C-alpha cells in the first residue's frame, strides 16, 4: 500500500483510539452519577483500575491471546511483551493501542453492574481475568479469525464481542453478589436514585462522542474511496441510532410511567449506540434509526424486567444497555443488513449465524463469569460487610470521601 495511505489510516485509527480511550471518563461519570455519593470514590477508583490494568495486561499478553495465530479457531497463540514495529494498513502498534482501549471498554462495563457492594480486592482480581482471558478468547472467535468468524457471524465493532461480553460477566457478578441492602424490601423493588444525574448526562454525551471512535474507527482505515464512504456512513448510522434510542426510551418511559425520565433516556442513547455497533457498516440510515428506536424501547422494558421481575440489582442498567441491547443489535444485523439481512431478502442464514454467535458468547461470558465469581466468593470473598455497604465503601475501603 502507498505510504501516504498508510499514514492516513494510521492517523484515523489513532484518533479513534484516543476517542475510545476518552469513553473511560464517560463510563466513570455515568457509573458515579447513577450510584450514591457514599460510593463515588470507590467507583471512580475501579474505573481507573480497570483501564490501567487493561492497558498493561493487554500489552503483556491479552493482545496475543486475542490476535495471535489461531489454535483451532479457539484461542490465539500467546506471546509476551510485544514490541512490534511492523506496518500493515497502519502501524502494528497503532493496532495494539486500538485493541487495548476496546478491551478496557469491556472490562469497565462490569463495574457498573456490580457497583456499591463489591470488595475492592475482588474487583481487581476479576478485572484481570476478564482482560486477559474472558474478553480476548471470545474476541478471538470473531476478530482473531476464530470459529465464529468462519461461521459468517458479523459483529462490526463489537455489540456482542465487546459490550455483551462485559455485560454478561456483569450479570453473573450481580447474581452472585445479590442486591444491595435496601433494594428489595418485602419482595418489592425500591428506588435507589443515583446521586448526580448531571454527571450521568455528561458521561453519556462523552460516550456518544467516544463512539465516533468506536464505530467509524473500527473501519480501521480512512484512505481511499471505500474507506471514505464507509466511515461517513458509519458515523451517520451511529448517530441516528443513538438519537433514536434516546427518544424512544424517553417516550416509552413517558407513556409507561407518565413522566419523561432523563435517566432512562440517557440509558436509551447508550442502548441505541450499543445496538448499532454490530451493524453500523451494513445497515441503511433508516435501518439504523429503527434499530436505535427498538433498542430504546427494549431498554425501558429490560430495566424493569431485571429490576422488578428477575430482581437482579444492576445500579446503572449495564445489563440492559450492553447485554440485552448488544444481543439485540447483533441479531438485528441478520434482519437489517442490506446485504444478507432477512428484511432485504437475504434469507435467515445470516440471522442464524448471528443467533449462534450471541448464544455462544453469552454461554462463554456468563459461564466463566459465574465460575470466576464463585471462586472469588469462596476464597477472599466478593461482597463487603453490611456495615461497610451501609456507611459507604469510600470511607471503609479507601479511607477517602469523594465529597468534602
Amino acid at each position, binding site marked *: 500500500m502507498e505510504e501516504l495511505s498508510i499514514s492516513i489510516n494510521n492517523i484515523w485509527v489513532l484518533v479513534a483510539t484516543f476517542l475510545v480511550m476518552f469513553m473511560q471518563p464517560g463510563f466513570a461519570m455515568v457509573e458515579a452519577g447513577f450510584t450514591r455519593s457514599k460510593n463515588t470514590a470507590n467507583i471512580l477508583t475501579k474505573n481507573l483500575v480497570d483501564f490501567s490494568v487493561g492497558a498493561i495486561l493487554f500489552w503483556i499478553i491479552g493482545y496475543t491471546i486475542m490476535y495471535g495465530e489461531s489454535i483451532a479457531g479457539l484461542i490465539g497463540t500467546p506471546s509476551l511483551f510485544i514490541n512490534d514495529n511492523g506496518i500493515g494498513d497502519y502501524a502494528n502498534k497503532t493496532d495494539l493501542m486500538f485493541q487495548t482501549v476496546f478491551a478496557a471498554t469491556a472490562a469497565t462495563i462490569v463495574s457498573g453492574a456490580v457497583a456499591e457492594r463489591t470488595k475492592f480486592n475482588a474487583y481487581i482480581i476479576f478485572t484481570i481475568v476478564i482482560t486477559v482471558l474472558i474478553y480476548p478468547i471470545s474476541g478471538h472467535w470473531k476478530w482473531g479469525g476464530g470459529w465464529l468468524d468462519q461461521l459468517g457471524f458479523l459483529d462490526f465493532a463489537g455489540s456482542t464481542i465487546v459490550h455483551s461480553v462485559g455485560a454478561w460477566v456483569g450479570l453473573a457478578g450481580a447474581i452472585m453478589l445479590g442486591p444491595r441492602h435496601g433494594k428489595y424490601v418485602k419482595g418489592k*423493588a*425500591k*428506588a*435507589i*436514585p443515583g446521586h448526580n444525574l448531571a454527571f450521568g448526562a455528561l458521561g453519556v454525551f462523552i460516550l456518544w462522542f467516544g463512539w465516533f471512535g468506536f464505530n467509524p474507527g473500527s473501519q480501521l482505515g480512512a484512505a481511499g474511496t471505500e474507506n471514505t464512504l464507509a466511515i461517513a456512513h458509519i458515523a451517520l448510522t451511529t448517530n441516528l441510532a443513538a438519537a433514536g434510542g434516546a427518544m424512544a426510551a424517553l417516550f416509552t*418511559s413517558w407513556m*409507561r*410511567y*407518565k*413522566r419523561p*425520565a432523563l*435517566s*432512562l433516556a440517557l440509558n436509551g442513547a447508550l442502548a441505541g449506540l450499543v445496538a448499532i455497533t454490530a451493524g453500523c457498516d451494513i445497515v441503511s440510515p433508516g435501518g439504523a434509526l429503527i434499530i436505535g428506536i427498538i433498542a430504546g424501547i427494549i431498554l*425501558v422494558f429490560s*430495566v*424493569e424486567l431485571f*429490576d*422488578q421481575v428477575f430482581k437482579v440489582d444492576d445500579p446503572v*442498567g449495564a445489563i440492559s444497555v450492553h447485554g440485552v441491547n448488544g444481543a439485540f443489535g447483533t441479531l438485528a444485523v441478520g434482519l437489517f443488513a442490506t446485504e444478507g439481512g432477512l428484511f432485504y431478502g437475504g434469507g435467515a442464514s445470516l440471522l442464524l449465524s448471528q443467533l449462534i454467535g450471541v448464544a455462544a458468547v453469552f454461554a462463554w461470558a456468563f459461564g466463566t463469569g459465574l465460575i470466576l465469581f464463585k471462586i472469588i466468593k469462596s476464597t477472599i470473598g466478593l461482597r463487603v460487610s453490611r456495615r461497610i455497604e451501609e456507611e459507604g465503601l469510600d470511607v471503609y475501603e479507601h479511607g477517602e470521601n469523594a465529597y468534602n
Partner: protein
Amino acid sequence: MKKIEAIIRKTKFDEVNEALHDAGIEFYSFWDVRGVGQAREGRVYRGIVYDTSTIERIKLSIIVRDKNVEKTVNAILESSRTGEIGDGKIFIIPIEESYRIRTGETGDESLYIKGKEE
C-alpha cells in the same frame, strides 16, 4: 428568650428574609431540610414509584427576646403564606440561656447590638 423555628417553602425565603428585616429581626440561621407533610409529589426512578412525600424546605432558627416573639411570628406568617398545602409551620421553644461568642455577653444582651437597639 425564645427560639422560633419556622419551616417554610424554599421559594418564599427571600420574602420572609425581607419581612424579618423590616420587623427588625436581623440575626438568625437557616438551612435546607426535607419536609414530610401533606404536600406530596410522586417521583419515578427507572420505573419505580417512590418518595411520595418529601419536599425541599428551608428551616429558620431565630432566637429572640420575649418581647419580639410576636412580631417575628407575624412577619413570618404574613410573608410565607401562599394558602396552598405545604406552607409549613412555626414552633416556639423556650431558651434558657444565650451567649455571644465574640464578647461573652449573655442573656438578652447577647441578642441585640448595644446602641443599635430600637
